[in-house]
């Protein structure tokens, strides 16, 4: 059964259809790539899945249950976590604290627990700290725990954001251009991290412009252009699809067709 089903989902901003009747599904344990030119509606689709705003049409089903219109934090509780295209860490916290914040939906201490430091709260806090440390290590950031997040190098910040998202133990992880702005060796690290995350039983939905990375890690691809799905299939099929090539590079014979 599919983990996430996007069913004829649409989103209009004024008269503009940013996402228009898009349908696809993500299978359990899959790495699905979401690609398309700039402005194709990929990030908008992420925002719809994480309920940053509600769709104007269609259904979003996570494990068979409708999630459209839920509060963003409830979506996280259900098991969908995300990273952002432009990194959004908590800059004045340490790296470890960032990940500890990510643990929020998987812990429960309230105000009184925090103030009175009950035994349960102390145990939970120790557990949060331990799990967060493990995640930092997994992301190759073990030495950075006490450093201020905003001062970390760019590549570290990207990985820290993934660690924070992983702290909530998602079933489905949405990565928005994790390799953007990275050099080749950093991109290779991201590639093995994505595979490691899948190895932990987490399904990954990936937006990425780095085609070599997409072709290597993704099981299937969904291609968007101007808010519509134009193709879906295995990486090799997509590469050979004339419509996809056209969306990225323009048409060969009609030079005066001005849109790109």
């Amino acid at each position: 059964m599919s983990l996430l089903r996007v069913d004829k989902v649409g989103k209009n901003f004024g008269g503009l259809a940013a996402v228009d009747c898009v349908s696809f599904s993500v299978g359990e344990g899959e790495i699905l790539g979401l690609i398309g030119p700039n402005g194709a509606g990929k990030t908008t689709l992420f925002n719809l899945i994480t309920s940053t705003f509600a769709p104007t049409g269609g259904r979003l089903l996570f494990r068979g249950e409708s999630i459209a219109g839920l509060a963003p934090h409830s979506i996280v509780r259900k098991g969908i976590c995300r990273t952002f295209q432009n990194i959004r860490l908590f800059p004045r916290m340490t790296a470890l604290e960032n990940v500890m914040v990510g643990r929020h939906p998987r812990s429960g201490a309230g105000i009184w627990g925090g103030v009175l430091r009950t035994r349960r709260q102390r145990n939970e806090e120790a557990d949060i700290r331990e799990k967060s440390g493990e995640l930092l290590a997994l992301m190759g950031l073990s030495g950075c725990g006490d450093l201020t997040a905003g001062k970390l190098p760019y590549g570290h910040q990207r990985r820290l954001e993934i660690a924070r998202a992983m702290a909530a133990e998602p079933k489905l992880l949405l990565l928005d251009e994790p390799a953007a702005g990275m050099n080749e060796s950093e991109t290779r690290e991201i590639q093995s991290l994505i595979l490691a995350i899948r190895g932990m039983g987490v399904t990954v939905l990936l937006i990425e412009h780095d085609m070599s990375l997409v072709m290597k890690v993704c099981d299937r691809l969904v291609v968007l252009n101007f808010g519509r799905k134009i193709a879906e299939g295995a990486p090799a099929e997509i590469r050979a699809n004339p419509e996809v090539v056209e969306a990225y590079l323009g048409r060969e014979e009609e030079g005066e067709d001005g849109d790109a």
Partner: protein
Amino acid sequence: MLVNVLLAVSIYVTLSTGQLSLGNAGFMSIGAYASAILTTAHGMPIPAGVLLGSVLAGAFGVLVGIPALRLKGVYLAIATLGFGEVVRAVFINWESLTGGAVGIAEIPQMGREILAALRESGFTPETVGLRSNQFISLSVFLILLAAAVLSTLFFLRLSSSRAGRAYAAIRMDEAAAEAAGIDATYYKVLAFSQGALLSGFAGALFAHSTSYISPADFTYHRAVEILVFAVFGGSEHLFGPVFGAMFLTAVPEALRFVSDYRYIVYGIILVLMMIFRPQGVIDQALLDRFARGGSPGGS
């Protein structure tokens, strides 16, 4: 005065979720009036009055906090300032309940009540070498000190816990906090009403230590004064506003001749701070330096 420390903590609490509220003078007056009316007109004991006054202010905090979610930054500041003025206008005009502009006098005073209670059990202040009025001031001071220390400790501990991390995350990036699974609505309303409750508590204690209150005690000058504590001391860490409150209350006491010009001095201090140290006197870097210098094992 230690009441100012409580007020400084109260503005810090709402600020720690990124909400700048100037309504704390209004919440303070709600706490003060509620407790004053309950103890004078209805004969309630002081602790019950203080408790109910704080809770009532906290409840108003929830009522104001929910619509306040829609406002950010200066818009929120102006709206909450307006709330404070509305509360004051109500207290001025609801003469049958509040005594109007004249205010409420003969509010039971904490120190005197304690002394009276102790006298009944045969204790006199002279046995510990104090005159009655000295004993009264001392007991008021001790109660306020305990309240200030306890509330500071409360929020200090809170800030290093799960809820405190949620506050800090919302302050730094609300959308990212929601994406990390934090219910921003809940925590923002919670912080707002905690601030309101603490202001109400401060107001109630204020009423029972001066034993006379009037709407003039809760003007917008008060609201700005509380803000200045946070701006001067720094709003990054709880110690900032607390330091600001203590320093700015102590200075006019020490330099009595400037006390008439207090607001001019505040203005000058604010301008200078904005030029030379926009983050306030106390920031995280300064505290880290103290922690390293003081105790090498400290976190």
